[in-house]
């Protein structure tokens, strides 16, 4: 493999990356898919780890909502408060960050304690 991050890095890779960032003194947030409705690109339990530089490992969708999740994750790193995010066709936000596949998902974002 020549890429640093595989398109579908395994859950263990995501947790290992999060742990490594914490070890390096970075702030880290973890996003997890907790609910899906209809067709969704990634199953329940899929995770995305994000550090304060906006670097990330893993995925919570096929790439459609990662940008928005990362923005919220940076907020969570600052205030320490967990967040519940919903994305889907019924959500006005969908037009901006849209799930092209038409599914709906709920993502939980939490800060990882140092």
């Amino acid at each position: 493999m020549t890429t640093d991050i595989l398109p579908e890095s395994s859950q263990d890779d995501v947790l290992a990356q999060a742990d490594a960032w914490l070890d390096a003194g970075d702030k880290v947030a973890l996003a997890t898919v907790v609910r899906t409705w209809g067709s969704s690109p990634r199953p329940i339990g899929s995770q995305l780890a994000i550090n304060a530089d906006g670097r990330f490992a893993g995925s919570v969708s096929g790439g459609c909502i990662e940008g928005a999740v990362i923005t919220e994750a940076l907020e969570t790193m600052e205030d320490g408060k967990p967040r519940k995010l919903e994305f889907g066709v019924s959500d006005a936000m969908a037009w901006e960050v849209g799930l092209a596949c038409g599914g709906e998902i709920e993502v939980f974002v939490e800060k990882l304690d140092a």
Partner: protein
Amino acid sequence: MKRIVLKELRRARDSRVPATLVTDLSTGAQTLIVGEAFYGDPLPDASELEQVIDQVMVKDKGRTIEAGDSRIFIQPFNPPLRMMIIGAVHISQALAPMAKITGYDVTVIDPRTAWATEERFPGVVLDQRWPDEVMEETPPDRGTAVVTLTHDPKIDDPALEVALRSDAFYIGALGGSKTNAKREERLKESGLTAEQIARLHAPVGLDLGSVSPAEIAVATLAQATLALRGPRRKG
């Protein structure tokens, strides 16, 4: 997430021990359950929690439940799938990396030391013992797929005799229909029941008309996936 929860979760993953993460989505309070041990916050008070945890672990699929004003997310962390590939052959050279990307812990087993070499299998876990010896040490469980590819009954048969008696969710063996008929006779003579032998997928892989070793690997991995997940659309 508390650091101890992350540390213990990673430790459970590394040692292939099942774990369950219970999260209150309103407060972020979290409990990690590993066997009899609990880490993080106290478990939330929900009457059906214990039952849901069992279901989530068996189905290997996370779920949210309502508990008073908040919702609780229960996430299973079952050990990674395992694939034991018997035979360090051409097909294995394609199958091992493909299975790895798909999420399997892969071991290639072949007692013929000239075949199971680091040069032919860069980055793959190799075991140069006899397959039945390896499988006695780490028995195939319900998260394990076993694929025999050597074409040599001396190596393949002992592996199949163990695998067909185990909980392995997928067992496949290379060989055309003639080879397979003879193999079934031998397995019968070794004391396996018709029911056990019927679990064998042979010739290995979905019928994709595969020609090259890599294409046979695709067909095999596809068949293992089907055995694990089942078709989404029935009929």
